[in-house]
């Protein structure tokens, strides 16, 4: 079981292009992935042959469009092993998915003194919605710290989790790459009487996801990090929770009946899908799921662990102490997200110099400013790997770092 990277690359039109005279070495999939031809074609095909609004027209096009949109929901259901399509809500992205939980479930269930347990490594998307609830209604926020190997330090878990109503954690850290012990945290959350929410933005694209096996109550992920288009994400939630939750955005599509003196919401999942939905984007996400399942999620994971191991070793061997990697040392304990700093060269300058060699890496705080403060840095450079990357890509990165070192050497 392995990924044929050369064949995969051919499926992505963008790899035909040249950047600053070099072949494209795209190492920023943790920010957003590239798209295979199959995804682009699926979206074009919808617009060219079947496009109409969903759940409205009785005419043929409306039925085809609705079938394609709902077909994408079924693909998502299978992809994460959700018990029912009623539990699969389309959102704009993970940020909206977590906001939905915070605004709908949070406002109905959290008040003064209620506690939510998060971690120090959360993306702003799983921090700010809860900070808002703290400001608005005095919800207490607690944070699991990280240890010296950039993994969650669970020493004080029993004390921190005691009495909380929700535990929210990233499946894989978008900065450190840390693969968190989700099942263990789910069990601890449930033992404490809390719900368990997973920010799956960096997880679902890279690791076979089974929301039942993981033991989560809410799981959010986004299409554009898993070969799909922007503007489409997913919130999965257990049906009885979603049933009890008040509507989030209100208006078109999400209602059953409206009178001038009131309204009743539609049933799940449409209760949480207000307004005309990103239909082509949902279809594109469905095509991305087909593509990933064809490659095989186990093969994806195996490829990334092996390529991450190669990258960690090669980078460290070539650059030694000049390079600091912020993330777990053991490849099996992490995803293919490699954050680093380079002695004497600011991450922005690293990224700028790498760009000249056709290498795309992100530089900045990666929407995790509290974690940056914890690490004692303002920013890091971050190379992230996916199915279209291979050792040759890592080698180009590695050599291009020499140029950064040379340029900024004192």
């Amino acid at each position, binding site marked *: 079981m392995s990924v044929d990277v050369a064949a995969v690359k051919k499926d992505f039109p963008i790899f035909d292009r040249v950047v*600053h005279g070099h072949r494209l070495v795209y190492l920023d999939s943790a920010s957003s992935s590239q798209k295979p031809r199959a995804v682009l074609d699926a979206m074009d095909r919808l617009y060219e042959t079947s496009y109409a609004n969903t759940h409205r027209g009785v005419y043929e096009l409306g039925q085809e469009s609705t079938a394609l949109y709902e077909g994408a929901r079924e693909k998502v259901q299978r992809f994460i092993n959700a018990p029912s399509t009623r539990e699969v809500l389309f959102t704009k992205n993970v940020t909206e998915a977590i906001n939905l939980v915070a605004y709908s479930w949070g406002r109905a269930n959290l008040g003064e003194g209620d506690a939510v347990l998060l971690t120090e490594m959360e993306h702003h998307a799983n921090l700010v919605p809860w900070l808002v609830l703290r400001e608005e209604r005095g919800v207490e926020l607690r944070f699991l710290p990280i240890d010296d190997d950039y993994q969650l330090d669970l020493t004080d878990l029993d004390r921190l989790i005691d009495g909380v109503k929700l535990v929210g954690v990233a499946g894989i850290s978008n900065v450190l790459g840390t693969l968190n012990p989700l099942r263990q945290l789910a069990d601890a959350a449930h033992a404490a009487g809390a719900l368990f929410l997973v920010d799956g933005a960096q997880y679902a694209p890279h690791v076979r996801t089974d929301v039942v096996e993981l033991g989560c109550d809410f799981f959010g992920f986004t299409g554009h990090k898993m070969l799909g288009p922007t503007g489409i994400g997913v919130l999965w939630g257990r049906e009885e929770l979603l049933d009890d939750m008040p509507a989030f955005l209100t208006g078109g599509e999400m209602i059953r009946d409206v009178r001038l003196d009131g309204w009743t919401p539609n049933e799940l999942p449409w209760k949480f899908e207000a307004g005309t939905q990103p239909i082509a984007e949902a279809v594109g996400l469905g095509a991305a799921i087909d593509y990933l399942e064809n490659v095989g999620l186990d093969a994806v994971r195996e490829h990334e662990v092996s390529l991450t191991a190669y990258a960690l070793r090669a980078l460290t061997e070539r650059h030694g102490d000049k390079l600091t990697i912020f993330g777990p040392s053991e490849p099996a304990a992490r995803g293919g997200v490699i954050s680093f700093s380079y002695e004497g060269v*600011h*991450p*922005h*300058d690293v990224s*700028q*110099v790498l760009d*000249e060699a056709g290498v795309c890496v992100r*530089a*900045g*705080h990666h929407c995790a*400013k509290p974690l*940056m403060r914890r690490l004692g840095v*303002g*920013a890091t450079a971050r190379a992230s790997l996916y199915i279209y990357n291979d050792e040759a890509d890592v080698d180009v990165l590695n050599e291009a770092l020499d140029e950064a070192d040379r*340029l*900024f050497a*004192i």
Partner: protein
Amino acid sequence: MPGLEDLYREIILDHYRNPRNRGELPSPPARRVEGFNPLCGDEVVVYLDLDDDGTVEDIKIAGQGCSISQSSASMMSSAVKGKSVEEARRLIRAFKAMMSIHEQRLDGSEEEEPIAAEADVKLGDLEALQGVVKFPVRIKCATLSWNTLAQGLDEAQAE
């Protein structure tokens, strides 16, 4: 195609490696102003000591950032130290005019004339930062400390 040598001129690297006026001033009496680039996390702290005649008696720069933001802050501190507030403001306008030329082109207009050019203001070493306009995402790095200085001068004058 602009190359890295357009961006990383030797004088920029020199100010990055050996930043001038680096440090802090006791505040108060010095004014302390923070500037953030929310996109990248760069932050600059400008300590400003204005005397009663409206002269920049002393200036210190703290914070962290990339070579462009740090060298720009360093050169700015050298350029405005000992100058009157009015001269400092003209430098700010001249520098931002230099930086905004390309922003206008990005908007699709072919406007070549710098806005609000301060023809008689000598930018000196600061002209080395001109290459930044060829790398539009880095313009905010170059202007961060200048915007922070402007904010400090505004606050001082409002009192």
